[in-house]
């Protein structure tokens, strides 16, 4: 498409141009001035979304996953790959619903993942390094960007909430462990300490005292899943994937519910509640 093309010509799906000459803008029937204004509106919404969801997702993750995401010596093979994806898929699921349903944007999960990464990129250095002097490797966060990208791609492929939940939700959880293991593998290297074996993560947790966090509060591979031996993490990842299918679908529905506008009927009772007298003329 070029600038001399008539604005009234029907745009086709192959035309992908940014700005006022975009076929989407043409199809929407926006004038160049309106298109520019809509771009400003986009910018304001993006800023608001980033600020709001950076805080909300971080709060949500800290409340529900807490120490599992906070400390390196909590990231075990059993609970960490199970708890974290289940907690982390909630906001991405809801955001996907909103972005897809109203704008056909398959970016909701990635927005959620990036917002969380932005939040931890601010809080971990500020809280732990600058404020309390802990080393960064004690508080390395998990990332869910890999799973979120695949979740968004699944939505783009299937264009359907149910199939996205089944395949995307599962992939989101299943990819969590390997995509984070790449980062955390060095921390599972063994070292001898006081005649006992410790992973480097255990050692980091031991060397830097957290006075109010005694060792026993860690929840490390408790239960019978250890009978699977070395495969505990994959069994956890599979189970987490199963749970995430339901979590995604539920939070998709919640996202739809929370983003739908409802209006109260303008009847006499409502008018009375608003202080409008029955004989007063009102618009609408």
């Amino acid at each position, binding site marked *: 498409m070029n600038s001399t093309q008539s604005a009234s010509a029907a745009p086709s799906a192959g035309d992908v141009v940014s700005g006022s000459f975009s076929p989407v803008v043409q199809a929407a029937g926006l004038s160049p001035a309106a298109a520019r204004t809509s771009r400003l509106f*986009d910018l304001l919404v993006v800023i608001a979304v980033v600020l709001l969801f950076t805080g909300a997702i971080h709060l949500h993750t800290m409340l529900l996953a807490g120490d599992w995401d906070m400390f390196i010596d909590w990231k075990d093979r059993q609970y960490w790959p199970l708890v974290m994806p289940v907690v982390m898929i909630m906001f991405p699921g809801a955001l996907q619903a909103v972005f897809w349903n109203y704008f056909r944007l398959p970016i909701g999960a990635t927005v959620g993942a990036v917002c969380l990464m932005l939040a931890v990129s601010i809080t971990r250095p500020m809280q732990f390094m600058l404020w309390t002097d802990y080393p960064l*490797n004690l508080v390395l966060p998990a990332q869910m960007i890999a799973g979120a990208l695949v979740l968004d791609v699944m939505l*783009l492929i299937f264009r359907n909430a149910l199939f996205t939940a089944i395949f995307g939700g599962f992939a989101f959880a299943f990819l969590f462990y390997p995509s984070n293991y790449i980062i955390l593998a060095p921390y599972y290297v063994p070292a001898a300490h006081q005649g*006992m074996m410790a992973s480097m993560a255990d050692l980091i947790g031991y060397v830097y005292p957290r006075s*109010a966090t005694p060792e*026993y509060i860690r929840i490390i591979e408790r239960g019978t899943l250890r009978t699977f031996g070395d495969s505990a993490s994959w069994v956890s990842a599979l189970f987490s994937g199963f749970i995430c299918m339901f979590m995604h679908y539920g939070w998709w529905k919640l996202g739809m519910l929370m983003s739908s506008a409802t209006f109260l009927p303008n009847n006499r009772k409502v008018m009375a509640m608003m202080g409008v007298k029955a004989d007063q003329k009102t618009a609408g």
Partner: protein
Amino acid sequence: MTNMLRGALRRIALLPLACLALLASLDVLAHGERAQEPYLRTRTVQFYDVQFDRAKIAVNEEFTITGRFRLMQDWPDAVSLPETVYMSAYSPGPVITRVESYVNGVPARQSFADFQLGRDYEFRLVLKGRVPGSHHIHPMLSVKGSGPLVGPGVWIEVTGARADFRHEVKTMTGETIDNLEDYGVSRALGWYGVWIALAAFWLAFWLVRPLLIPRWIALNKGREDLLVTRRDLMVGIALGITVIGLTLGGYAYARKSYPYVVPLQAGTSKVDPLPAQTSTVQVKVLDATYDVPGRAMRIKAKITNTGSEPLQVLEFTTANLRFINRQAPGADKAVLAGSPTDTIARGGLVLSDASPIGPGETREIALEASDVLWELERLVSFLTDVDSKFGGLLFTVTPTGERQHTEIGGPILPTFTQL
């Protein structure tokens, strides 16, 4: 009026300065050890013979805390039993680091199970200076379900530069890590960067186009074909394949790079208590009062010497407060080198009859432990406790220097007027 306004503004202007002054003084504050309920401190863990081998160290220099503690038989109902415990040092953050820790010679990196009430344990904590400053450091026993129970502390001065701190570790795979706190950080940041770059590409791919209003209107006009094109689908699939390939390939590479890995190590250790001492002292508390205005605990006790040597009361200790009978033999050596001195009562322990108790003799003695420390350490809320009892250890000593300790305790009555 104008002057008043100016004064008010001046005060408001000084507020940030006051806040800054408070922040600047934070490193010399303690960390809330006096805030614990008195019954927690008087009737759970009694630390004794606590010693710090050094009071001033440089960054990277080690110091050791040694000592013993008794788990009181009269353990409060409100506190979980010490079925799972963790021995550590209490510090304002990682201003010091842990090098080694032991309980009765058993490594204490992990928690312990099933400590026994009425028995004694010995600990040794080896710590290292990390952040320069003056830091209040305590030994601490954490009890699952109850929280930290803090022993007596001292101010440790750490000198030098924070940047000089090093904690070298040698892995079991033969790798030497120069400084534990930098280990793996650059690798982690690099991989975060890779994932963020992919996410940034995906977001930019969609966000550079007309976004919300045009897309919403177009969608409502039924032009979904314009919003998600075949090219978008192809790019999305390519991205998905890239992400999955990078994840699985990266995982395989990590497995190859680190072939020997172990899971996080957890679980509890078990350790026997110290051998029970052969007791030749029996103490029965007849009554106990706390004189609120006089800041004095008065205990009337019947003490029986079942041994073959005469003995004298040496010390009463509770909640890290120490009341020493200056007339007892060896009283001058009761405070070991490097022991915390902040909580030693200046007035000591006053007895109604300080003469030695002969072998086989039973004597009724009134003990008075009087000091402002009861107030300073915030131990006087016997009045507000649901279980108004006291507890502590009574040390006795023979002329040959043999020392014994006996657990004492019972109900305590507050008195509100000067007697």
